[in-house]
């Protein structure tokens, strides 16, 4: 019984460290909130689109951080959920259903079912096998998308219009879409923050540290891990809905295993197990890719080695360098 009392107790963090841990996310979100005002000075639509994509990537990466950073579940098929979200919007839209809430609801429902089923099977395995089986489920969905000949197959599908909100075409405005993405990113951040800080989150972290001990004191790891897997999958599907709207196009490429690899790279780059690290990682990742692609079409020649160097030498990622302890 002592253990559960312990789990419910607030974290014993030094006040200084605590305020520092809050400062960084606060700065990040303040920057995002104010950026459209500053963007007027530069190439506005370009900056808005780039930062909107950064926030969408951050949303997917943050949900993966719940799995990898807090649950030690290295999922290599997370892009599949982004694909589910994107295709929910596109397929419904191609049938004339453009209501954003219907599309979002469908995406959440489908991703819930997919996460529940694949998670229930995947979580029976451990370690390397878990990485591989999530990878395989991701590929399964990818191949399904490529074989949907009615919805573009390999080539993908263009949206006839962005989602309607309350019947209005307000999302056509890039600034509105920007703030919708911002709102959802902030909402997901606050939600995941509270999930992580809750009793559930503490149990999850306990399982990460030592599943055997957690089981011995009476927690069934499987149920907690599966719940986290479903939450993460559904948030990634939301990011897919936004991605489809931002690009006004979907393709199976959203769900390739390389995209899943990118998502892992993003959270390792930004600092694993900190949530806001995913946002910083997404920003650095996208800006780096954007910058390098301006100089050479062979930017991957520089990108690959950077990834290797980050893994070999920069443990803790950028968040670690900035001094915020997860």
């Amino acid at each position: 019984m002592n253990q559960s009392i312990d789990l419910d107790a607030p974290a014993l963090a030094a006040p200084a460290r605590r305020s520092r841990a809050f400062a960084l996310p606060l700065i990040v979100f303040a920057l995002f909130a104010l950026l459209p005002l500053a963007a007027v000075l530069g190439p506005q639509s370009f900056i808005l689109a780039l930062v909107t994509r950064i926030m969408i990537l951050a949303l997917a990466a943050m949900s993966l951080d719940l799995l990898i950073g807090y649950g030690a579940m290295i999922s290599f098929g997370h892009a599949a959920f982004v694909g589910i979200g994107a295709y929910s919007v596109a397929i419904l839209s191609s049938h004339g259903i453009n209501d954003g809430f219907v599309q979002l609801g469908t995406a959440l429902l489908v991703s819930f079912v997919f996460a529940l089923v694949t998670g229930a099977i995947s979580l029976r395995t451990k370690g390397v096998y878990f990485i591989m089986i999530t990878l395989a489920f991701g590929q399964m969905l990818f191949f399904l998308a490529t074989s949907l000949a009615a919805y573009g197959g390999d080539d993908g599908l263009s949206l006839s219009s962005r989602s309607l909100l309350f019947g209005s075409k307000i999302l056509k405005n890039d600034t509105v879409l920007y703030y919708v993405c911002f709102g959802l990113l902030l909402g997901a951040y606050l939600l995941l923050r509270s999930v992580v800080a809750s009793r559930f989150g503490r149990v999850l972290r306990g399982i990460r540290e030592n599943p055997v001990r957690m089981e011995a004191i009476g927690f069934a790891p499987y149920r907690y891990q599966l719940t986290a897997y479903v939450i993460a999958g559904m948030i990634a599907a939301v990011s897919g809905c936004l991605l489809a709207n931002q690009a006004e196009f979907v393709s199976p490429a959203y769900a390739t295993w390389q995209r899943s690899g990118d998502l892992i790279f993003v959270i390792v780059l930004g600092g694993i197990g900190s949530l806001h690290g995913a946002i910083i990682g997404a920003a650095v990742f996208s800006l780096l890719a954007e910058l390098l692609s301006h100089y050479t079409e062979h930017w991957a020649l520089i990108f690959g080695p950077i990834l290797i160097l980050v893994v070999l030498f920069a443990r803790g990622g950028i968040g670690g360098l900035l001094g915020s302890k997860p």
Partner: protein
Amino acid sequence: MTLTLAFVQILNGLQFGLILFLIAAGLTLVFGVMDFINLAHGVQYMVGAYLVAAFTAMTGSFVAGLALALPTALIFGLLLELLIFRHLYDRSHLDQVLATFGVIIFLNQAVKFIWGAAPLSVPIPDALSGAVEIADGMLYPVYRLVIIAVGLAVGLALYLIVNKTKLGMLVRAGASNAAMVSALGVNIRFLFTIVFGVGAMLAGFAGAMVAPILSVEPGMGDNVLILAFVVIVIGGIGSIRGAFIAALLIGLVDTLGRFMAPTLLKMLLDPAAASQIGRAIAPMLIYILMAAVLFFRPSGLFPSKS
């Protein structure tokens, strides 16, 4: 007629399965002995194909090209091990996955940089370019039969080495308990370098063998890598026997699935819907198979660690 068609598909599946085995063999041993996830194993296959394309163009002979490509693929694999992978053995699986992912990104772009994005083609050697009649009016290319024969021969050689020699004994022991083998005075790092080199060369060999029948292009190793992972996970990590059986299973299920799913569904649905759904289901079959195997046996069919 349908029977001979099915026979041709079985031969195709066998050939595909044996190629997968050549790739998966090295992967499963590297995995088993060092507990090291090497995503970059697929690029070894691509590098093998590119090397044979380059050397064949240079020498004008496929055999000479192959003879030059194999040692080069070996050296290339050992170089990667020395420069990057060696620093990852003591790291977490996450670090290994990411760093080797970086190697993939780099090498896919590097071959594009050197040889261009357009696919290269390698001519089938003249002596093997014919076809044999395997049934009435049904021709089958000699070269594909050669791949099957070579794949079986390499499989047999690997089986003998792993099961009948001292080196093979150490490799099996390493796969089941590396720390214990090391404690008994075996230089496990050196053993691993050998295993890694041979694995890299086998993957390169697989790439070289399929170069004349597939197009050689950047990223060609990526999908094969995933299939190789499916193979070793189904077979049980660290088990050559498991990899062999699983590779043939995957090769046959995938090939026959694509061939038969639309046909079988036609009995239940109207033809248009059947071919549509059949084509959607066929590529998913092997992943469903993998999920089913792991559901009942979470460590694969022939786990090498007890």
